[in-house]
């Protein structure tokens, strides 16, 4: 009897933080809808969402702010989830979605597309292809002659990222001056490029459905590949799945918003400091917290020095770095 109730308590301990994070996510979305060039009061916002309210407010909220807020939420969710998965894959709490050179590949392709004068849609498409190409190159090289270790994958990815970095500098150096601001905004991450929010949101939901049953297995994988193998985990197929899934999530996120930094590194890490390392909690929590962070950051990015907009990546870093350092210094 006591055991059964302990079981219920354990489950509740997982659900409570998720409930709080879901509430925070809704709040962040509401703030994103209410703030902007025209402020909208809470009661007015409710009226608009229910299909009534002022016609101007209707257009502002439903056609401009809502898609952008949802796109920011979805992008942040994907980046944080990709970060959490990469950290388990590489058994390194400091890994992030970009550590394996993904954003580098995406950036080089996107900058080339901009230089060629392609439209926004094609730039996004090029970024997606660049990210996946980088993934395959790193994976193929790290696979090498068969010995495939997290360390080797990490090193290959870091070196590839450095190579992409050099190419990015080269492209910036030779690009016409009038194109530089657009390029720099893309490199720092900018929700102004985001089109429809549905690709990121649907990928976020699907990937959550894919990783949720894997949660306990990932807990075991976090103990190292030998221990995981000894406890019945088919390590190699699982690692491939993680790698491809995290790469895909990152590619979709980068395609939507350029390379937004810090979310994928900080969100899972901050959650682990507070909530422990049960992936069944950390993965959905990362999704919610990452979405919340990027929604808030994007709201700040478009309101701080309005009518000017800031790249959202600048805000995530400015918000994230001090709060991360604070949490880290307070943890044991």
């Amino acid at each position, binding site marked *: 009897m006591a055991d059964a109730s302990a079981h219920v308590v354990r*489950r509740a301990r997982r659900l409570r933080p998720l409930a709080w994070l879901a509430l925070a996510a809704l709040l962040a979305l509401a703030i994103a809808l209410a703030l902007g060039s025209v402020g909208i009061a809470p009661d007015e916002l409710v009226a608009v969402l229910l299909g009534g309210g002022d016609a101007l407010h209707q257009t502002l909220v439903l056609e401009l702010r809502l898609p952008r807020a949802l796109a920011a939420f979805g992008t942040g969710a994907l980046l944080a989830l990709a970060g959490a998965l990469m950290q388990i894959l590489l058994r390194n709490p400091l890994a992030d979605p970009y550590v394996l050179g993904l954003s580098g590949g995406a950036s080089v392709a996107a900058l080339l597309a901009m230089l060629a004068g392609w439209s926004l849609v094609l730039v996004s498409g090029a970024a997606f292809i660049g990210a996946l190409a980088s993934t395959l190159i790193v994976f193929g090289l790290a696979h090498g002659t068969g010995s495939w270790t997290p360390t080797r994958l990490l090193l290959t990815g870091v070196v590839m990222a450095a190579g992409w970095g050099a190419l990015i500098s080269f492209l910036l150096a030779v690009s016409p001056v009038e194109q530089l601001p657009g390029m720099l905004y893309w490199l720092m991450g900018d929700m102004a490029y985001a089109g429809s929010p549905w690709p990121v949101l649907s990928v976020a939901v699907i990937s959550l459905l894919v990783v949720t049953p894997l949660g306990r297995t990932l807990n075991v994988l976090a*103990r190292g590949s030998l221990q995981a193998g000894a*406890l*019945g985990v088919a390590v190699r197929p699982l690692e491939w799945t993680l790698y491809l899934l995290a790469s895909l999530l990152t590619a979709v996120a980068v395609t939507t918003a350029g390379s937004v930094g810090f979310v994928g590194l900080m969100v899972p890490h901050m959650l682990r400091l507070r909530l422990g390392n*049960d992936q069944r909690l950390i993965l959905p929590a990362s999704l919610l917290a990452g979405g919340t962070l990027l929604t808030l950051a994007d709201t700040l990015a478009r309101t701080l020095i309005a009518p000017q907009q800031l790249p959202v990546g600048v805000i995530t870093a400015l918000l994230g770095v001090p709060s991360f350092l604070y949490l880290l210094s307070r943890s044991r």
Partner: protein
Amino acid sequence: MAISEPLIETLEARDLVIDVPGRTGGRPLYLRIAPGERWGVLGPNGAGKTTLMHTLAGLRAPRSGEVRLGGTPLSRLKRRALARRLGIVFQAHHDDFPATVRETALIGRHPFIAPWQQEGAEDIARAEAALERLDLTHLAERELSTLSGGERQRVSLATLLTQAPRFWLADEPTNHLDLHHQVAVMELLAEQADRGCGVVMCLHDLNLAARWCSHLLLLYPDGEACWGEASSMLVPAALEGLYGQALTTAMVDGAPVFVPRR
């Protein structure tokens, strides 16, 4: 007509040469570890004890030959099915992420729980019992990173006890342990053998091996090996040759005690 099918489940090494980097030859091993037997693996550093353990656990491919569990080659068993019947305590731990002692014991139940299921009351009860057995109940909520080496070692054993496989592989199970806990762990392994488990352990302590092992496998650095019942293997000359170390032998409580000579 000989009885060819084993009536009892055994862990067998057939014509097994382990894959130690930089070693060419090596005597093929024919081992048959039966329930109730307590095998000790002795050998100097670098003789391949850990490699042998990983190979017996199916975590590392042999250079040649095969390992069979209940007559089936390990390579033909699904990892999950294997993990229900065979478990291992590793010498090195990878605690890159935070985890509590209780969570760590509980992962021993992983091979028994379906992906969509949560740990149930029975799983938790088994983990708690294992923690109790290894004197860890008072540390259950502690982070692994705050434990001493010996405490961490006992957590690994608690995980294996929670897993409760038929075959136990333990790579230096007494590592970092104080005298009392060394004896307690050897008692635990002997108790598992009495309950019908097959136990294989790598040891550096000849005296623990002499007192607790029913069979011994001596691994030499050049790949030579010999094995048999403990009483026939505990020959001072053979042990001196194994370690390149002169020994003095005495009898205490009916078991030989080996002391290195200066």
